[in-house]
């Protein structure tokens, strides 16, 4: 059995705002196993975004232990964290975050640039992943030439191109209509099922959360169920 994709043990995160310490997470513990499908749900201000940033290696906890892909993030500098994100995590954002004026295939290949992959190999892999998400006919289109659903699929392809252990999706359907939202969710679930990539969806939508194998409900920086 492969090690857990994500392990959080009594993780806290505090922010200093104008000299006042504000706790965003107050001791969170849970595990995301390899191939797991977890929804993190809670109202805004519950700390779920903070948690997602921590799980994605974009931030480090104030205290507690956090393992990403089996590696403890404590003591990792910006360089090592960047590498950890590149190798272990695939991000999908609510607002897609595609580079404008850049073709779909180049957007998807971007993480490989920072891995040092050669240009031809980058393009080959990006094309393969785009075909996997059903956009083989849109390789050289730019984001503004694609629909919202297509843009999110490009973003999913970008998250997948590095063969990550975990897909972290932050409100992936938030900017999409119901039909496109359903299609994107179905795609993420298919990837989870067929490729064994752990899927963590952060959402405030109960319908979306209900589809996950496991739900983590957050309130005021704590897991309530």
């Amino acid at each position, binding site marked *: 059995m492969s090690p857990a994709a994500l392990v959080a043990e009594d993780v806290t995160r505090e922010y200093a705002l104008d000299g006042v310490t504000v706790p965003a997470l107050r001791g969170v513990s849970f595990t995301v196993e390899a191939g797991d499908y977890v929804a993190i749900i809670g109202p805004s201000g519950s700390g779920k975004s903070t948690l997602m*940033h921590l799980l*994605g290696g*974009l*931030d480090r906890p104030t205290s507690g232990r956090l393992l990403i892909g089996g590696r403890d993030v404590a003591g990792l500098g*910006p*360089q090592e964290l*960047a*590498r950890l*994100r*590149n*190798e272990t995590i695939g*991000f999908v*954002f609510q607002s897609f*975050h595609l*580079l404008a*004026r850049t073709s779909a295939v180049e957007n998807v290949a*971007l*993480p490989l*640039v*920072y*891995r*040092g*992959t*050669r*240009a031809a190999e980058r393009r080959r892999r990006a094309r393969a992943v785009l075909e996997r998400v059903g956009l083989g006919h849109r390789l050289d289109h730019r984001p503004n030439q694609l629909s919202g659903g297509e843009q999110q699929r490009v973003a999913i392809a*970008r998250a997948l191109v*590095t063969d990550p252990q975990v897909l972290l999706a932050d409100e992936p359907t938030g900017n999409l209509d119901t039909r496109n939202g359903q299609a994107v969710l179905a795609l993420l679930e298919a990837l989870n099922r067929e490729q064994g990539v752990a899927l963590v969806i952060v959402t405030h939508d109960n319908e979306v959360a209900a589809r996950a194998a496991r739900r983590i409900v957050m309130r005021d920086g704590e897991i309530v169920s």
Partner: protein
Amino acid sequence: MRLAEAWRVAIDALRANRLRSMLTMLGVIIGVAAVVVLVAIGTGTKQKIEQQVEGLGSNLLIVVPGQVNIGSAPSVSRLDLSDVDAVTKIVGDRNRVAVTVASGETVAAGAADTFATINGVIETTPQVFVRHLARGTYLSRSDVDTQRRVAVLGWSVAHALFADRDAVGQQITIAGVRFRVIGVFEQLGQSLGIDRDNEVHVPITTAQRLLGTNRVDGIAVKAPNRDEIDDLGARIIAELSRRHPGTEFSAVTQEQILGVLGDILGVLTGVLAAIAGISLLVGGVGVSNIMLVSVRERTKEIGLRKAVGARPRDIGLQFLLEAVLLTTLGGFAGMALGIAASLIVAALSPVPAAITWWSLTLAFGVSAAVGIVFGVVPAQRAGRLDPVVALRTE
């Protein structure tokens, strides 16, 4: 590979904001062009003056009364023709000694007249200084010995009095006294705005009678070779000091003149380059400013790149390259503009301009350095952005 991506992104970013990139570059273009043009003018002027001083003839020693000091008033000459004989004895060859007594006088021929420098000289002048005749003959020793009223005209004087007609054999008057023209010099051109062709050579004996004086303004000696110049100068000064107790004499060589002129022009060129450098600095500040704007505009992009694995230095490099690209492109354009402007100045104005490799290299190097120096702060700022904050930015 990451470097290639950084280049691609940098070029893309400049293309995305064409007008802004152009305007930012303009500061660098103007700065670099100014450096190139001003250094070219400084260098060209220096080269031209050096050519002219060297063109006087080699191994020259010019002896004048008083001290040669910039800023001190010229002293009244106490030399006369007997001193010239004494110097000639030291030198041992009359053909190596030239003398002059100079005065500004009106020269006329028929209805035409002009104001020219009258140089009273001896017949050796063309051997000591390099002077060539366009027409006729130069003064002879017997002209000098017998105070003949004969004259050799500079090109401008001949042109002013006789236009295109042959001046040789014509009668002119100098300060109302009649002279016969026996020769015309080849044209020399201008030096530091002074027309070197606006002169008339007459026998020194004739000139002294005309001016009512027996003074000699200066003695020039052509040394047989370079090694003897200093020794010869010392011996001449010793002899003249013995003959004129209480009067100082100076002997200057071409090297000394060139050295002094070179120093002055070098400083002048440096000052011009420094002034131009300031505009380059201002251009650099503009680059820095626009790069900070660019970082702010692309905060979200930086956040995304970091999320997918860009290290701080990948982001920093990307923005640094963008700044360097701006200034080096500006540097190239500025060099082209500077070269073009220098050629135009040299062709259309009397100001000489010589483009030098070192000024081009310097201007280009400085523009690239400006990109690095003024790009570092925005690049560091971009590299250190917190990805969480950057991703949240709208």
